[in-house]
């Protein structure tokens, strides 16, 4: 028996994987230091504003993937 991993089978699947990894990176180490300032944006600390953006971005990406027929 081979030790193969299950990977996306279509280009849409790869797009889905890439989109999800991008969203996760936007909420973690590579990006958060760039936003770590005392600035206030739309009445909120920039990190709070970014958290709200991520909430809607995540839902938006998942909606787009549903629309594309990506099943994960």
């Amino acid at each position, binding site marked *: *028996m*081979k*030790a*193969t*991993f*299950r990977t996306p*089978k279509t280009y849409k699947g790869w797009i889905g994987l890439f989109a*999800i990894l991008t*969203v*996760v990176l936007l*909420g*973690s*180490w590579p990006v*958060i*230091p760039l936003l*770590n*300032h*005392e600035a*206030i944006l739309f*009445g*909120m*600390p920039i*990190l*709070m504003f970014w*958290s*709200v953006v*991520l*909430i*809607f971005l*995540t*839902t938006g990406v*998942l*909606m787009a993937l*549903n629309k594309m027929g990506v*099943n*994960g």
Partner: protein
Amino acid sequence: MAQWIPFLITVSYMVIAVWLGFGAGKGRDMNKVEEWGVAGRSLGPIVMYLLVGAGGISAYTFMGAPGWAYSKGVPVLYVVIYLTFMGITAWYLGPKVWDLGAKYNHVTQGAAITHRYESPALGALSSFVTSIGVLAYAVLQTTGSAYILNVMSHGKIPVWLGVILSLAVISIYLFRSGLRAIGITNAFQGALMFVVSWAFGLWVVKQFTGGYSFGPVFERVREEAPQFLTLPGNLGDMGFAFWTTSILISMVSVWQTHWIQWMGANTRKSIRTAATMLPTYYIVCIPMLVVGFIGIFVYPSLAKADTVAIQMAMDNMPVLLAGLLGAGTLAAAMSSSEPCIHSTALSYSKDILQPIFKLTDDKAGKMTRWLIFPIMGLIVAPISIMQPASLVYILLIGYGFIGQAFPALVGMFFWPRATKQGAFWGLAAGFVVTLIFSVWFPHPLGIHAGIWGLFVNLPIFFIVSLMTEPVSKKTVEDFFPDMVDELYEEAPETTTKPVSI
């Protein structure tokens, strides 16, 4: 008399929850695991959205999160982000878990592990150890419920009585209606929490600034205490590494409660729709966090940070709003503890007692819902009343295990070559490392203990799996039907007899 209005509102919430939950199971045979355990797989996307959303919002959101904002500042936002990203996990895994459950009649995570790894012992072990974290969480939420009842009754309801009252209320509808009760009460609790959080948050902002914009609050924080607005926060304990690894370990920790909730959906599409929208529910956290920031100026030296929101409500709010906050916080605590009690009863019955005593499905079904009473009476209630100092360690140990089950899930959905030996030894090693780095040497280099555990767990999982015999082709076909041809293309077919470890 007016001082009792908040208490009456809080009690009214409990009465409504009982009424809704009790009625949810009407006309259903709750002696069947399919009904009591997973609501006959009947929950639509809106109930699923509120069920999972409200389940993720615990008493922590109404007490602990404002407390973190008050004591640390923006580090608390990692909670909003990890809750959001758990929507991705639910979106990806939820429909797959549902498919497996519908096809092979799995109800619990332990049942799926038993099937995938051909090892009832591994399924039972994972069920038992996972329950430690789940029950510790139920204890924390029950303590939160008792605290709210104590505050709202001006101390007339002591903590021990609050524990008994909140568990008694849950037991009435949980015994009667199972996951259907959790679904309908969580939908009610979820909507209540959303309204209360925003009403309370905006009211506090109006009182503090004269308007409804958060801007003046944070302008003042920036002028007087800017360290609250950036990482590592006011206490200096949330670096980028800890932020990132805390989010990642939470994202890959699939709780038994989530698994069972996904099973309750009426279609795989309902889970996917609910999971897609799930992150939007967590906007509920934002106003409560702002309340915590306002507390920095209102209560400069509060002894217990977690009480900042309740303190503000009891000191300044109109009685109606204070009562709603009490009800909302109680709803948050109950909506998180009841799935824990339900899932533990289900997994003890299906994954441990049924295989050990070789019970029929019928007998196991009848026993399952009765198990909530010993779980509540012998475990949750006494520990909630005693509040042992070691509870936090129990919780850390439990959480550590849940995260370390991730490679076993990788073997279920991504890697057919995974074996029970690989899953077991990886999990054991990861668990020990997580324990050491949680309790004795907390989070070395600012990296979460659970991630250190996975650093050890994953290589062992892969290496031991490659050194041991894979599961039978039949099981591989069950879990990876799309890969069978590719997997057995050249290599000779390998079969092994299921062996308990």
